């Protein structure tokens, strides 16, 4: 009985909190459905601006950032082709169109494998792409393990509209012929939360 009273009291408090704050949570963590070749995956949506128009907008490629130790012998150009192929597929499915010059949005990405990326480093690397300070909450995050971070930047205003990331431990022995499939799945798991989870 005491427990029920406590639950009722907490529930009322929650109701008031939701009513007052409007539930303005910005960051979210999601568990991907199925990610072949990736263990312990998690998807993190770090930045979401309200009301991002998607349909009939255009996108082009912004910054590509890589932090991958040389010992893995990974071709960055091949990786870039894989990621941009997956991104094109996902974004066009959402009604966007690729435009190399002067698009509405720049799509940037960062990839680390066997290394870490700090959010501050990422933002610093984007200096040419973004104006002034980033208008999102700076968190104290190190993206560990394997990570792919996808950013959507408004080209004219140079503002970061959306940032999503997938963190996972990639299988180092994953067959070459299935790497595109792995990349497609990882990109899909992140982009499915764009523009809003």
């Amino acid at each position: 009985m005491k427990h029920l009273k406590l639950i009722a009291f907490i529930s009322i408090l929650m109701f008031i909190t939701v009513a007052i704050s409007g539930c303005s949570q910005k960051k979210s963590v999601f568990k991907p459905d199925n990610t072949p070749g990736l263990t312990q995956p998690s998807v993190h949506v770090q930045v979401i601006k309200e009301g991002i128009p998607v349909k009939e907008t255009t996108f082009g490629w912004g910054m590509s950032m890589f932090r991958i130790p040389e010992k893995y012998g990974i071709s960055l150009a091949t990786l870039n082709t894989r990621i941009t192929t997956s991104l094109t597929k996902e974004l066009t499915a959402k009604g966007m169109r690729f435009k190399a010059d002067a698009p509405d949005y720049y799509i940037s990405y960062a990839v680390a494998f066997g290394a870490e990326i700090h959010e501050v480093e990422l933002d610093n690397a984007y200096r040419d792409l973004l104006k002034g300070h980033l208008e999102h909450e700076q968190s104290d995050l190190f993206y560990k393990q394997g990570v792919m971070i996808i950013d959507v930047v408004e080209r004219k205003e140079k503002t970061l509209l959306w940032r999503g990331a997938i963190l996972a431990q990639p299988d180092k022995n994953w067959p070459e012929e299935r790497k595109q499939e792995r990349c497609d799945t990882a990109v899909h798991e992140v982009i499915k939360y764009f523009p809003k989870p």
Partner: protein
Amino acid sequence: MKKNKTYIALTGAMLPFLTGCGIVRITVLSVAAVIGLAGYAVYKTGEGAVTGVKKFVSKTGQVASGTSKAAGTILFFKGNFKTEYPYGIRFVWISVNTACSNAMFTDIKGSVDALSGSLTAKTRTGTEIKISLKNVESNLTKASIRYGVKGNMAESEKINNFIVSELKLMQIQAVQSHSTTK
């Protein structure tokens, strides 16, 4: 009366789930667990992967942690392939020149001083390659490689690999020369 209270409690507990508020949802679940309502689980994946480590970041935003420097950062933006070499500019300049010569590029021209350097070369098909260097520290040089007018990541990556191989070779030679002199 009892039934009414139970109903209110359950409705209240369900509210965060219906509104989609993650924070409240997790809090409700945690409280529920604490007070003995079994069967709920808080999804905590990703906590091990994303960790708070504020102490490693200086006021300038430079990461002081050694781990992040274990792998160099490579950026590709607007056709420019940007990287860093953990060597002084003089050492890098010699390697860049040798790498371009070994790659049989033609019209290799450029200049360097203690602060910066710039080199241009041409491929067999006449595509221009531009390599810019900037001295960051005594043992750190930033480089930008541009292949052709629009830039090309695959070709720039190959040129970078030529330079890295040359740097490694030069370092081995320098070490051998040093030990022979001793």
